[in-house]
């Protein structure tokens, strides 16, 4: 994976803006930012400790060619997809999508941090949901709780037990799903075919960009 990082760095030399424009989804919007800062001011995670660079700064870093700073940044993984920035941007820059595009690119070239919590959630959720076409809540919860080890998982589960019991009583959570396969969607084959096609299209698009 790090080979790809190396390859890309060499290919675009000092032109990180061009690299993002060509490689990251929606990256072509980075140049259109006019640095008003409305996105950063609108971001609900702005004051979160993990939020090192707000979107405005990420855009500026890219334009200043600061490849390492951007690829080491946490900011783009912290996006909660609330779309505040997207809606408010006076330049109609799809900030949310650009953030996801940059995060995805960093991941693709092996520069995403290990065990980054929001990335872990996304990947777990994706794998879980695409397996049967529906989310298996019990398994999803398990894998999230026990991410940092057995002790931490048990502790977290104990904290949340009243909520879990309430959900079970209300018929919203089936503990048996922990062992069984969980509920599936009606046309699992169709879903998988659809996802395969989407993957194929994306691979084509990326291949076209080199």
């Amino acid at each position, binding site marked *: 994976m790090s080979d790809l990082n190396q390859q890309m760095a060499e290919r675009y030399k000092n032109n990180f*803006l061009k690299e993002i424009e060509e490689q990251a989804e929606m990256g072509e919007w980075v*140049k259109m930012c*006019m*640095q008003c800062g409305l996105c950063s001011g609108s971001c609900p995670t702005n004051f979160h400790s993990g939020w090192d660079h707000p979107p405005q*700064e990420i855009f*500026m870093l890219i*334009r*200043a060619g600061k490849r390492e700073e951007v690829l080491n940044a946490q900011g783009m993984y912290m996006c909660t997809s609330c779309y505040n920035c997207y809606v408010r941007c006076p*330049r109609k820059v799809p900030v949310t999508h650009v953030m996801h595009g940059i995060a995805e690119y960093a991941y693709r070239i092996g520069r995403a941090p290990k065990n980054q919590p929001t990335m872990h959630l996304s990947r777990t959720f994706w794998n879980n949901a695409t397996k049967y076409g529906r989310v298996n809540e019990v398994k999803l919860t398990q894998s999230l709780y026990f991410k940092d080890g057995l002790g931490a998982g048990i502790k977290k589960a104990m904290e949340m037990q009243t909520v879990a019991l309430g959900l079970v009583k209300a018929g919203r959570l089936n503990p048996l799903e922990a062992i069984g396969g969980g509920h599936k969607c009606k046309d699992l084959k169709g879903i998988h075919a659809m996802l395969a096609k989407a993957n194929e299209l994306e691979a084509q698009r990326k291949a076209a960009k080199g």
Partner: protein
Amino acid sequence: MAETKTAAYICKGCELGTRLDTAALAKVATKSGKMNLVREHDFLCSAEGVAMIRDDIDNEGVTHAAICACSRRAKTEAFNFPTVAMSRGNLREGVIWIRPDTEEARETTQEMAEDYVRMACAEVKAMTVPPGNQKTGSVKTLLVVGGGMSGMTSALEASKAGYKVVLVEKSATLGGWAAKLHKRVPTREPFKAPEDNGVADMVARIEADANIKVYLNATIAKTDGAPGRFKVEIAIESGAIAQEDIGAIVQATGFSLYDANKLPEFGYGKTPNVVDQAGLEALAKEAAAAGKPICRPSDGQPVKSVVFVQCAGQRDASGTHLQYCSGFCCNTSIKQAMYFKDSNPDIDTVVLFTDLRTPGNGEDFYRAAQNKGVIFSKGVVSSVAASGNACAVKFKDLILNEETEAQADLVVLATGIVPNSGPDLDQLSEANRQAEGGNEEAKEQVVQLMSKSVLNLTYRQGPDMPQFKHGFNDSHFICFPYETRRTAIYTAGPVRRPMDILQAQEDATGAAMKAIQAMENAGLGKAAHPRAGDLSFPTVRLEGCTQCKRCTVECPFGAIDEDEKRFPLFNESRCRRCGTCMGACPVRVISFENYSVNTVGSQIKAVDVPDEFSEKPRILILACENDAYPALDMAGMNRHEYDPYVRVIPVRCLGSVNTIWITDALNGGYDGVMLMGCKHGEEYQCHFVKGSELGRYRLSKVGDTLKGMNLETERVHDLEVAITDIATLPQKINDYAALIKSFPPSPFKGF
């Protein structure tokens, strides 16, 4: 002149008849007003009512009419009798509409109305019909000074309107700065690419225009006279003088670029690779002519990277450089960055800005540049250092909050503009004063300052247009952007404020129209803005004049010169009829036919001042007719009530208020005097620019008079009023009235 016959007309319409005892008002007009003829009418502004007045004028020989109905600002078309002297008693907006319709209020409301009838009668008797300025000139040729974009536009627009134009340009060609541009910022949809500068087309139109006479390599040697009859001497290339008769003048002398040599930290002058915006235009023109890309001046190699430094020597809070924004440079840098990107997208173009200001449709243009790959970085440049053929631009990135550096083949500085507005008149008059005292240095300074003169006016107040902030020529930028302080001379374009080509063209069109209007009014002997159409003009009883020169110094429009015996010489065509001279005159020898120390003074004396036991104070309000009086009228229309003890007299400007009125009022037993005038100072709103400021300065001395009379100094109150203060003004009047009531009654009552 025919025998004087006075008449008062009392209207009973608009509820005046039910709210007031009009029979009693008619009696007041006869007894106190001493009017020869008094009539009441149910609906005075109706065709029938107007016909009644007209009949009295035609058949009864009425020469003076006091119309007691609504405000002087209402029904002006109905009550239009230009052959007789006329005053208006404001019973509607000034009395019944600002008083409650209650039994308790009836008495004070009636007293108020009776006073306004007395005042209208007193005023009209002190008036005569203005005959119009006889010393007029009817030249209808426009002089345009400066052949740049603004000047050419003014000339073409005036010609299109059917007027002859004389266009004087000091250089050898028309076009000014615009002609030096490779291309200009786009003026039409989709605002995405630079377009042709358009100069050649305009020059061709001017050359083909029979109405426009062009002097190239020429300057104005002397401007003498007044609107409608200026005599202008033009120094032409051969050294000869050409004389032109001119009606009005548009000064479109534009700007010079701020000298980049004053910015050594940015490397200008140290390396040829640092240029100002005009320098880049020259490079771009040269490259286009040679069919080559833009090249680095140091070694002639094509430029591969360029950095634009915005606000170089502009918006400088320290005061070392220009303090203002020049308005066009951001768009210009965007345009210049496109010169590079359009020829080769691989050229790195970085614009370093603190705030990108793109007036007009510049935002679209900015977006287009971003799309083309121009990089915009928010940063403040600290230095530009040259090493060999490259420049290192050190700057603070304001977004990332760090000191950083960019490398470039070429650096372009956006240095901004300095107006070509002629010498500063205050500086010049000070230098003149010292030179007269024999100071050799001052004599040289006078010569040096006069060499910058644009118009070389023979006016006593100086050879050029007065300046305002930062050396730009004064124009009424809040309310009337075209208005200047010299009648029929209009400044247009960047000489009066920073602006881009498009704004300058619009400005020049407006200035041409104002100039045409001024010429036409001058020909009819009428005043220009804001008393457009006014036929009155100031007259002076020279036998009483003490030659104190206050009128010549204070006139906001430089209308008054001095004759050879050092008496004031009024140039009526330059006069705007503000009355500042009249207010300034300590011996009160200046007056207008329909506005004088006496017209206001007699109104002040006409008011019935009850004795000190009646608990009915009297407060005089002298209200500026441009802002305060309309605001009071509108307060009436909105039925905002105010104190019944005030008596309002409109004045042409606070500057026309003579201190004798205040002294007279206080001596006559008034308990207080309130003055309402427009805002003055840096954000002045005075229609006569300096009038309210001069008036206030004069009135600041009135405290001594009050102390001499043993009265509280708060009894005279100066209030700044804008026309929009409709809702707040009544409260301010009431607060002041409450203050006056807290004082003991004036000891001067009954004398």
